[in-house]
């Protein structure tokens, strides 16, 4: 099995690199491990049959062994790896008759959408497919007598209700003993879009490209995103399907089921530059293209960049789409609630702009003079230095004491330099003002 393990290349905290792995000690389980370390996962896809994985991990947890395993279009190779057989190992064969089968994560898509029962004692703990066929759920996964009264086997289930009822009633938040539950949605409308958890091939995220009827899932978090799975409240996956044009609201997604609010979770992006194949067990048939460097800035949740993904704005929230396979992406918007979105004030923007314009000669007096020249207004030294301190606290400026000059009575300068974050914040401010001003009567076309 060829896997593509993800290793993070973090700006501040952790850096890893993706590489191919074979099954050694460093094998990282795709979904299983991700759920161990990752709190949050999102898949965004604005183009058909391509997905951008956006995984959010807990900021205070090291994303150890984080991996995304991509399939190689071979039998029993699954996109993002196959199910876990044990806690730290992955068994691609996923023997369904072992007790550990209940740990399997089956967000799978197989030609034969059947779920088999393992041991009798675990018969309620196996993964089963969830199929959606015009608002009907035929097979509901992961039910137990204790936790699944609302999810009844072989009965019609209003999944919309299950998802909307909050975390307690969330279909995918049902914690069944130690089970790493899983489920999968499919649509009978397009056969390829459906999957079943098959007997021994339980691969996560295989063929999630179907034409999912959004009427069912849109109810969750409004039209923000789709929730696919959760493992013992350790995380869940939000899906953006191919035919989805709506924007995703990570805040709604996270706070609604988990009650979490910013700061706990970082963000990073994993692009998947695969197409999907019809009637095949592996979704991502260009798995090697997953091997690319992804930069993570874990705690800050800032996505430094990745390839094959380009941000697009959709409404007020950026969506992500995959561009051409050979397109290099250098920048990815981060727009998540846990990311500290720095919106500058007017004076802050003027200060950053003046400092950036002065370059290496930026210091207090020069910046003050520049601001007064630009704005035509007096700039008090108190406002200047308190703003410099504030921006430095935000990480948008960096200051240090410079040399002394006779002009200054032998006193040192406080030199200022705009950091990359400061440049970005200023650019965001400028873009926002430009967008807001668009169409205003005083704006010349």
């Amino acid at each position, binding site marked *: 099995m060829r896997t593509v393990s993800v290793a993070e290349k973090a700006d501040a905290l952790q850096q890893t690199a993706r590489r191919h792995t074979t099954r050694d000690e460093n094998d990282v389980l795709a979904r299983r491990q991700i759920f161990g370390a990752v709190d949050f996962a999102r898949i965004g896809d604005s183009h058909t049959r391509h997905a951008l994985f956006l995984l959010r991990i807990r900021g205070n947890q090291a994303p150890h062994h984080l991996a995304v395993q991509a399939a190689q279009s071979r039998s029993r190779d699954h996109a993002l790896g196959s199910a876990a057989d044990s806690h730290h190992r992955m068994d691609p064969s996923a023997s369904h008759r072992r007790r550990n089968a209940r740990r399997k994560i089956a967000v799978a898509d197989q030609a034969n959408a059947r779920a088999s029962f393992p041991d009798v004692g675990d018969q309620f703990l196996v993964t089963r497919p969830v199929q959606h066929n015009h608002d009907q759920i035929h097979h509901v996964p992961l039910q137990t007598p204790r936790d699944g009264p609302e999810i009844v086997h072989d009965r019609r289930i209003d999944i919309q209700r299950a998802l909307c009822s909050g975390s307690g009633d969330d279909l995918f938040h049902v914690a069944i003993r130690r089970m790493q539950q899983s489920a999968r949605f499919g649509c009978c409308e397009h056969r390829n879009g459906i999957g079943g958890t098959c007997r021994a091939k339980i691969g996560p995220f295989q063929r999630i490209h179907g034409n999912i009827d959004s009427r069912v899932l849109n109810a969750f978090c409004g039209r923000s995103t789709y929730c696919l799975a959760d493992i013992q409240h350790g995380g869940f996956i939000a899906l953006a399907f191919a035919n989805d044009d709506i924007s995703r609201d990570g805040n709604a997604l996270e706070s609604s089921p988990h009650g979490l609010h910013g700061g706990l979770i970082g963000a990073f992006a994993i692009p998947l530059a695969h197409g999907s194949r019809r009637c095949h067990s592996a979704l991502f048939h260009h798995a090697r293209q997953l091997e690319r460097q992804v930069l993570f800035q874990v705690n800050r949740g800032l996505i430094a960049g990745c390839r094959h993904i380009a941000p697009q704005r959709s409404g007020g929230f950026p969506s992500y789409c995959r561009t051409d396979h050979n397109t290099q992406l250098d920048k990815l918007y981060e727009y998540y609630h846990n990311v500290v979105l720095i919106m500058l004030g007017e004076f802050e923007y003027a200060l950053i702009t003046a400092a950036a314009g002065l370059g290496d000669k930026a*210091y*207090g*007096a020069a910046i*003050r*003079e520049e601001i007064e020249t630009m704005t035509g207004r007096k700039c*008090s*030294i*108190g*406002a200047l*230095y*308190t703003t410099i301190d504030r921006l430095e606290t935000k990480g948008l400026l960096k200051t240090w*004491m410079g040399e*002394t*000059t006779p*002009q*200054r*009575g032998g*006193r*040192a*300068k*406080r030199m200022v330099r705009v950091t990359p974050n400061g440049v970005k914040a200023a650019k965001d401010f400028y873009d926002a003002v430009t967008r807001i001003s668009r169409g205003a009567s005083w704006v010349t076309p």
Partner: protein
Amino acid sequence: MTSWMELASQLLAPCEREAVLGDLAEAGESAWRGLLGVLGLVIRREAIPWKNWRPWLAAFGLSMPASFCLMGYSLTVSGSFQSWMHGGRALPVLMYASLLIAWSGTGGFVVASLSRRTLWMSILATCSPCLFCLARFRESSLPPICLLLFLAPAIWGAWHGVRKAKIV
């Protein structure tokens, strides 16, 4: 006026003072405008901690009411001490004194821990009731200084609080 400006700049951190005075000199600001600029910066600096709730609680929620209570208890300790000197029991004196020391020290520690940077305001909030009561102290049998017995352990507690406090 320049000396006033430099005097006011003593309220700034050394590095900032250096930069500010240098900028004012380079810009050729008048002494008066320089003084206003420095004072404005000082006021802004001092106002920043007050965006937090801790200084408010420390100054007006703890220091001021506690100083009233502790002044009253200081009088109790003084009275019991006076009665002990006139043949009374010593145990109440020890108990009251211990409680006064404990409460005062704890109060000073908490106040200083809550907001170290605004400790001056907490001190003002403590001293203002003291001055108010001292001005109206009419007890002939006790000296006015008996009102302020709590200050010594309170200062001791505040000193420890400042050393251990987080910077707010």
